[in-house]
């Protein structure tokens, strides 16, 4: 595989993890426009451990994920007070605060960025990506997932039948933060240079876009969305200066024609039947 395609596939894997992190809390009806903040935390923690403490990457990623998870839970509690678009705005603010924190945090390079991380292989990135996707797919078949969906459909009713909505929502926030942190750690060790600008609003939006375009009702939608978001601008290269405009137009077109996303449960069922002829 050429380095060009290897780079694209790495981008898809990392973006897919970010998209899954948004998906996990979206299932509980919480929209995050600030998951790039958790990605930044994972990115900086993992880089600190591998560069300054000479850790191997895998334990560094796990510690980064746990750190972000704790912060996610801490953020998740006050976020319980907010709903809908106001929660989205608060998470947007959180993401921007994390970004500007790393801008002034000089031990990790501040606005000058941070480098020195060992480079990881494409296979390693995709091992994590596939592992997390499998985890989310398994979660989707569990009772816990049904509880998360119940909160999505009607939080009051879910509480009335005895579900612990607080625990579920905060837990989803923590899990989401951990997944975003792993995306960040892999990002740092793929690009071997990070700066706070990598983790701005646009990154958070990319995650949400990948989920909504790919299909927000199934975890595998994140894969479709991430691939589309990375590959589409490449395929549009022949348009030269106008390719971003064409990308924006196609984005609107997909939203208009398939607001539920490209992949949904009926389509997934159809694909499964095709691949397993009885």
């Amino acid at each position, binding site marked *: 595989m050429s380095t060009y395609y290897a780079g694209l596939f790495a981008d898809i894997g990392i973006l897919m993890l970010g998209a899954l992190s948004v998906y996990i809390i979206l299932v509980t009806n919480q929209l995050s426009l600030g998951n790039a903040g958790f990605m930044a935390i994972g990115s900086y923690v993992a880089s600190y451990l591998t560069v300054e403490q000479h850790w191997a990457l895998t334990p560094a990623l796990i510690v980064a994920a746990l750190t972000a998870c704790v912060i996610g839970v801490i953020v998740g509690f006050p976020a319980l007070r907010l709903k809908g678009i106001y929660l*989205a705005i608060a998470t947007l603010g959180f993401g921007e*605060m994390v970004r500007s924190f790393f801008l*002034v945090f000089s031990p990790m390079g501040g606005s000058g960025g941070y480098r020195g991380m060992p480079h990881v292989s494409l296979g390693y990135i995709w091992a994590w990506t596939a592992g997390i996707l499998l985890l989310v797919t398994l979660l989707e078949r569990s009772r816990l997932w049904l509880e998360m969906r119940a909160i999505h459909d009607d939080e009051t009713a879910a509480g009335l039948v005895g579900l612990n909505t607080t625990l579920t929502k905060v837990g989803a926030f923590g899990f989401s933060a951990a997944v975003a942190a792993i995306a960040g750690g892999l990002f740092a060790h793929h690009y071997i240079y990070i700066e706070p600008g990598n983790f701005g609003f646009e990154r958070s939006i990319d995650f949400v876009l990948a989920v909504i375009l790919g299909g927000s009702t199934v975890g595998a939608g994140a894969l479709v969305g991430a691939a589309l978001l990375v590959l589409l601008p490449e395929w549009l290269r022949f348009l030269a200066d*106008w390719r*971003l*405009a064409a990308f924006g137009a196609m*984005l*609107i077109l997909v939203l208009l024609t398939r607001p539920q996303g490209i992949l949904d449960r009926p389509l997934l069922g159809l694909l499964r039947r095709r691949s397993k002829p009885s």
Partner: protein
Amino acid sequence: MLLQQLVNGLTLGAVYTLVALSFSLVMGLLAILNIAIGELFMLGGYLGFAVIAAHFPLAAALLIGMAGAALVALVIDKIGYEPLRHAPPITPLLSTIGFSIILQNVVTNVWGSDPLQLPSELFDRRVSLGPVQIGVMQMVVVAVTVVLVAAVAFLIQKTAVGRALRAVSENREVARLLGVSASRITLFAFMLSGALAGAAGVLISLHYATITPYIGVDTGLKAIAVMVIGGTTSVWGALIAGPLIGIAEVMTIAFGGSQMRDFVVYGLMIVTLLLRPQGLLGARSEFGQRV
């Protein structure tokens, strides 16, 4: 020094006020964020620049900037919002991001990605008031902002179309039963919102005498913070929160370093959301509360 910073913060804040009002018109009515407002602001700035560069007066620049942004807002409503009215609120938010991408790309292709500069002598006249230097343009920015905010407040509170707007935001279905065309009111809100963002763009670009295609993102996000702090339910909230944030930002740059300012602004926003979710001047009941 301190007074000078206050004046500069006030100017910046006036622009935030206009863009925040632009966000809250759509948000108060439909509970969606129109992210493309940042780019309407940027487009207004470029249009204003072009008009001034062609030696027309400031008033013409303002009018063209507002009209251009309002027209694009019309397109955004018809293509990006109206067909997605029944989708969850994330979907129109993302479609407006599609328009952001398109607008940024088009402006970059038309005017280039390098910053455009105006010959600075055009609006460089300054008036000394004791120790404080006030640019003529700064006074224009603040004056135009106050006039526009007052006009919007009058429109919403005293006119028939304003009553219709409040009715639709209170209860869309009941308003329709009473004979208000909800889709027309939505279109009106989008265009008014676009015009305000366009005016803000003209003002800021002439004030700084420079503009790039990327100014919309940063200002747009800041304006969302201003909207939240002022309260989406009140026109006057934005008028207080804008200068507050503008001054906080300028003071942070002066005394804490420019890198800290976003931290302070978004920190204030989150504190507001948690302690007073309706905003400084928001009331819980009037003008469509949709938390």
